């Protein structure tokens, strides 16, 4: 197992870092909170070309998504990327932005028939919808124009990634997808989501450490108090463990390793738990300062909880893992 980055991977990460630092500043998050159209240029001018990463090694995509999560980037990129990844085995490809309609009310990506799909990200901003139906044993997919669907936005904590219920009057005739290829694509989607959570947690931890060094009370930086140091160390332990688990899962999926089923559940569960916990610690360290709307902390806090929920929360993935562990 080798976690070292190649020169190209280092390039992906640093390019992504500069991209989000330059094009997704704090002001954009505030603006997109009030009006989701404010996020459109980020997609139109920059992120659309990065959907290509859907066909790249998952370890590379993980690096990009870490930076995406760090920035708490708003807009349709996340949904478009997930649609492109899931459609990859079929050869279906959206011309512009897209989203993926697979989940039922329980949020899980288990194909089923019927006219409604839930927890569909950014549908209001997507040109096309990847409609998934059938069953795990016989999934089908079709691309439909968003204009042909009825969208209902369902308010949730993370307003920077709105969620929708999507209904079609007549479900389209989908093309069959190989179930193994479908399971593989879902694994990629899970690790992608987990990688974003790690990036979000990374911003929360780093920003908290910086704040603890700068903020003085009782005549010294609050970061010099042991109580605070231990909170931040515990947060770092959670996050580093989860980060490594996500990269490991990506390597397993790329190599089609036999450990990949377990590794993917570990990654999503650990990333969700870590991001939520680090977010709470970050709020406690920042205290009043972090509780103001103007501070970027709450955007990440909201993303951490929404990201944990997406494709099933950590509790669900731990239950699945338990089944895998005890079924021999």
């Amino acid at each position, binding site marked *: 197992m080798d976690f070292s980055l190649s020169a190209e991977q280092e390039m992906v990460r640093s390019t992504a870092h500069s991209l989000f630092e330059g094009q997704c500043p704090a002001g954009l998050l505030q603006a997109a909170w009030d009006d989701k159209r404010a996020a459109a240029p980020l997609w139109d001018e920059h992120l659309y070309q990065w959907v290509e990463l859907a066909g790249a090694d998952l370890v590379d995509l993980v690096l990009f998504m870490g930076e995406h999560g760090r920035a708490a980037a708003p807009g349709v990129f996340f949904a478009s990327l997930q649609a492109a990844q899931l459609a990859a085995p079929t050869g279906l490809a959206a011309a512009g932005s897209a989203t993926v309609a697979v*989940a039922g*009310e*329980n*949020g*899980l990506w288990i194909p089923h028939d019927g006219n409604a799909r839930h*927890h569909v990200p950014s549908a209001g901003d997507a040109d096309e919808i990847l409609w998934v139906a059938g069953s795990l044993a016989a999934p089908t997919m079709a691309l439909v124009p968003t204009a042909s669907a009825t969208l209902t936005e*369902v*308010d*949730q*904590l*993370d307003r920077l990634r709105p*969620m929708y219920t999507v209904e079609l009057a007549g479900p389209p005739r989908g093309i069959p997808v190989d179930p193994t290829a479908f399971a593989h694509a879902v694994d990629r989607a899970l690790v992608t989501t987990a990688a974003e959570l790690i990036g979000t947690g990374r911003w929360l931890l780093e920003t908290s450490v910086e704040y603890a060094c700068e903020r*003085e*009370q*009782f*005549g010294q930086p*609050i970061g010099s*108090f*042991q*109580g*605070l140091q231990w909170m931040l160390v515990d947060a770092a332990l959670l996050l580093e463990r989860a980060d490594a688990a996500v990269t490991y899962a990506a390597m397993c999926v790329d190599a089609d390793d036999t450990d990949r089923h377990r590794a993917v559940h570990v990654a999503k569960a650990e990333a969700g738990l870590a991001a939520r916990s680090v977010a*709470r610690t970050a*709020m*406690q360290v920042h*205290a*009043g300062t*972090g*509780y*103001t*709307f*103007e*501070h970027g*902390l*709450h955007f990440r*806090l*909201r993303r951490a*909880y*929404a990201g*944990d*929920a*997406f*494709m*099933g*929360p950590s*509790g*669900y993935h731990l239950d699945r893992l338990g089944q895998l562990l005890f079924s021999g």
Partner: protein
Amino acid sequence: MKLARSADDEAFRKRLAEFLEEHCPPEARLSNDFIASSEAGDDGVVSIPCWARKWQACLFDHGWMVPGYPPELGGCNATPSQTLVYFEEMTGRGIPRSLHFVGYAIAGPSLLEFGSDEQRRLAPAAIRGDTIWCAGMSEPGAGSDLASLSTRAERQGDEYVVNGQKVWTSYAMLASKCLCYVRTDPDAPRHEGISALIIDMDTPGLEVRPLRDISGHAEFAEVFFTDVRVPAANLLGELNRGWQITIGALAHERSGLWVEGVAICQRSIDDIVAMARRRGLDDDPVIRRRVAELYARVRGLRALGYKGFASFAQGGSAPEHSLMKVATSELQQELVELALDLQGASLAVTDPGRSEEGGRWQRSFIKVLAATIGGGTSEVQRNVIAQRVLGLPRGS
């Protein structure tokens, strides 16, 4: 030690219940969560609804606002144990006394304890809610370390001239008066150069800017002071003895605050059990154990609160009560986490029509993040407990 209430206290409870039946408005009976039912405009700035003002005045006029006070101050000369019964009944039913706590809980008691005769005459209106007060305490550089506050007040003739800034000032945009802590002697040791001034909010040079919190609402504000001239007669208590007032102000209601914390936790448990049933999770042994674990903590804390109250009512100190704020605020957060977890992939859904109890738990999640911050962070509370209750040495 005994379980049952005395006959007197039971009669008191019955009188209160009858009063509530007759007078409590429906709006005040809906508050079954962590959120004050104050209203917010399009800009997020909260206001005090009409029913809440009327309700507070009604409580005062019938002697049920602060029961331990005499009737002219909105009470009925209740004994300490009757006051506890009062808290139990009100918080158990989730009925708020007031949507702005500063007047009756901080300004009123401080005016009565430290004020001149003229200043004491401001107390009834503060307690009845006719005058809305804010308390100028936290500053950008003085949060956990309140004693480092740096808003200056310099004596010039018959006036103090105030310069500086306050932050996290609750209801400053609605208040007509501010109980403001200022530094009057910059050369004295930190705790000995602070005084309390009563400042009219319409004094020239005073500017209020609403401060949006992460819920998007502005219940707090920043208050800026630029050469604000305050009559010297508005000094509350002795010059440079303001720190004693801050301690008094915070201690007044603390003997009973725990009851509310415990009641909120108890209601959460009941609602979580009901939600688990609705969602078909009531047979899940993992869920059952998590609920039971939190229930055990609620009941333990409730007993600890009563134990502290017994020594408080006999005039002793109640170290138990310093533990209660930390414990109940952290427990509230854990209960909300559990309530979110029960909602599975919908844990982040806030849409009233598509989430449990109209998104109540998601709103509570945002709100209770402040419970371990406001009024002293859990970390600072633990420092206080370590030093004052356990007797551990101070750090460097």
